[in-house]
């Protein structure tokens, strides 16, 4: 990639990330693409992918989790 094309792709990906699409899969995929635009080392990218996949939280989404009651 030339530097200019790389910058254009990065801008496009940042705009996609800012589009606030409520999808964990979409958000993770964009994050991975952004990482690929600026990082070349395969080992580092593998670790980044693994970290991105490990984080399941989407902003504004709340899991329906069991709640422990305090002792009163």
């Amino acid at each position, binding site marked *: 990639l030339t530097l200019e094309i790389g910058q254009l792709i990065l801008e496009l990906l940042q705009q996609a990330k800012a589009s606030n699409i409520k999808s964990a899969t979409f958000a993770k995929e964009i994050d991975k693409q952004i990482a690929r635009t600026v990082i070349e080392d395969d080992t580092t990218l593998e670790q980044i992918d693994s970290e991105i996949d490990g984080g399941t939280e989407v902003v*504004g989404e*709340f899991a329906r989790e069991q709640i422990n009651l305090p002792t009163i």
Partner: protein
Amino acid sequence: VAKDLLQELQTIRANAVTNLEAQQQRLLADTLKNLEQEVVNIVSRLPIQDGALFNTRLAIEIRPQLQQAIEELYLKPVQTFIKDYDKIAGTIVATYGKLPIPPEFKQITEADLTTIQQLKKIAFSQFQNLGNEFTNTLAQEIYQSTLVGKPFGDVVQTIRDKINGIYQQADTKKREELVTFIQSQKAKGKISSPDVQTAIDELKQNYGSTVTGANLYVYSSQIVGDALMGFDGQFAKFRADELGLTSYVYYGSIIRDSRDFCVEHANRVFTEEEARALWQNDWQGKSGSDPFLDRGGYNCRHHWQPVDTDWGTIKDDGTFEYTVE
């Protein structure tokens, strides 16, 4: 049901909310300090010519970075605040568990979990809307400043003003001390004490000349309190409806700046109908007409405590006294 136990349960619930709010107010102050610095860092990466921003294309393109900063450094921390509402829900259910209610309601039910999830989303949306609004505000400020060649130092100052107002990161030790003092007292719920008011006046008088209008900190701080109180009130009401409890004590401490309305009605018992009729009236500081959503108004510290009138007696002045032993 012992009289003392019921009063204690009310206090436990109120304290749980007060303590969590104090913790969240402290975290909010730290969160917005980080955000302020990050936004200044982002703007500082733009090119400067003759002491001012000049590239309008880059000023427009900075928006996604601002949005990402708001999401990472504001909304994600706020999300953890809201996850902690589980502590309030747990406390409410645990206190109900001490009352003479059917055993199935002494634990969290499936319906409870669904309601809690929905109430969290509603609470979060208030912060999300504010975050979006301030992303626009900051983006516009940067673009317009670039267009008219506003000095860069003034742009940074305006950004700090818009995020933290008078509580922005300090460039002098004295100012830092005042900010730290005010925020620590605020976290303890002592914002109206004379010492704090003096400190706020000093801060405004000596350092607040550039600060106009509200800022992200002021709005967020109010939402931290009101969203938490709203969650507490709505979930307690939901549980009361599930249990068939139809009366409520307007419960909470009276402080120096309590509204006259709250002072007049504190500890009184109402049916839902009575409360809804009363809340159609006007009073100073009223924020809405739903007693369970709005209570006395912004920053109101009163709770609705569901009761069965068989647990006590309603006195001549309308207050409720627990008498069941």
